[in-house]
């Protein structure tokens, strides 16, 4: 089960500033466990962001994105916009969270 994201969106002068924190281990595939075995890579692969149903950003992550990923972007929008963030990882786990632009 994936943990909730933290999505914040603030409108200023017609621009909505969106900040997202995702809870994900983003295992790099480079680390070894205590027994010396490589811990397989486990990371978010794609992330989609919509405002009022329309794409505002699409991202693709490799294992080199930091643990508990942070993402900040801006789009032309308005207060009250409904923002939906959606990620999928390489094990097929996924998570959707929402926020309203303030």
């Amino acid at each position, binding site marked *: 089960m994936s943990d*909730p*994201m*933290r999505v914040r969106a603030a409108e200023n002068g017609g621009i909505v500033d969106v*900040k997202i*924190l995702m809870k994900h281990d983003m295992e790099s595939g480079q680390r070894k466990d205590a027994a010396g075995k490589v811990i397989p890579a486990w990371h978010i692969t794609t992330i989609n962001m919509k405002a009022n149903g329309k794409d505002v950003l699409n991202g693709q992550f490799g294992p080199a994105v*930091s*643990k*508990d990923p942070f993402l*900040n972007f801006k789009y032309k929008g308005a207060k009250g916009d409904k923002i939906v963030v959606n990620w999928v990882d390489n094990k097929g786990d996924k998570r959707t969270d929402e926020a309203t632009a303030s």
Partner: protein
Amino acid sequence: MQRKFTLGLTLGILAASISLSSLVFAQTATDEIAKYREMIADGNPSELYEVAGEDLWKTPAGPKNATLEKCDLGLGPGVVKGAAAQLPRYFKDTNKVQDLESRLMTCMQKLQGRNPQEMVDAPFQKGPKKDMEAIVAYVVTLSKGDKIKVSTNHPKEKEMYELGKRAFYFQGGPMDFSCASCHGEDGKRIRLQDLPNLTTQKGAALGWGYWPAYRVSSGQFWTMQQRLNDCYRQQRFPFPIYASDLTIALSMYMAKNANGGTVETPGLKR
């Protein structure tokens, strides 16, 4: 023998003069680190733990299937706001000085019927400790911006402070380290990390005021108990027992020294 000392003196003066010339360079590196910290300050992953912690606080759990909402953290049952800024403190019902985590264990035991030993024995970041960490993130966030205000009026509080002070200077292990080896002087660093002088108000506020924190090097949220645990690991000491009087005494020493400083928790650390 005498020559050795004379030589030592010369070397010492030389060393002192060289360190001046390297100061400029060191300053640049420190400024850059400050910039780095500023860049990551917005978007502290502690928030993710805080959300989970609020959920755990309000969800019935344990053998008694109860929430923690009636937990008394010192300001009365159910008062969370500002409570962490005044811990550790003496609690009448347990007749003990408790820090946040030992107090939360009391609440989990009394309200939810959980066995505190399970919490003590659990490894950090796993099982019951994982829940504890999230709950701590939730509780300390509700003191953010408050002034640190820890009392030593009760004789047991005063005693705990003195014991903590003594523990702070206690040297041991194969490297002769005490807490004071690294945190007893102003303006020192390990590698590029500034070391707050925890014996002063200013330094203690910088240390105590920013923990618990999310640590970027481990990608984990660390409670004060885990912070102390890793200090002792690095000191090459044996393993400090979770929520032992030793750990509470050290917290009491730091917290009281930090009085008047601002709670900046949860912090974001290297």
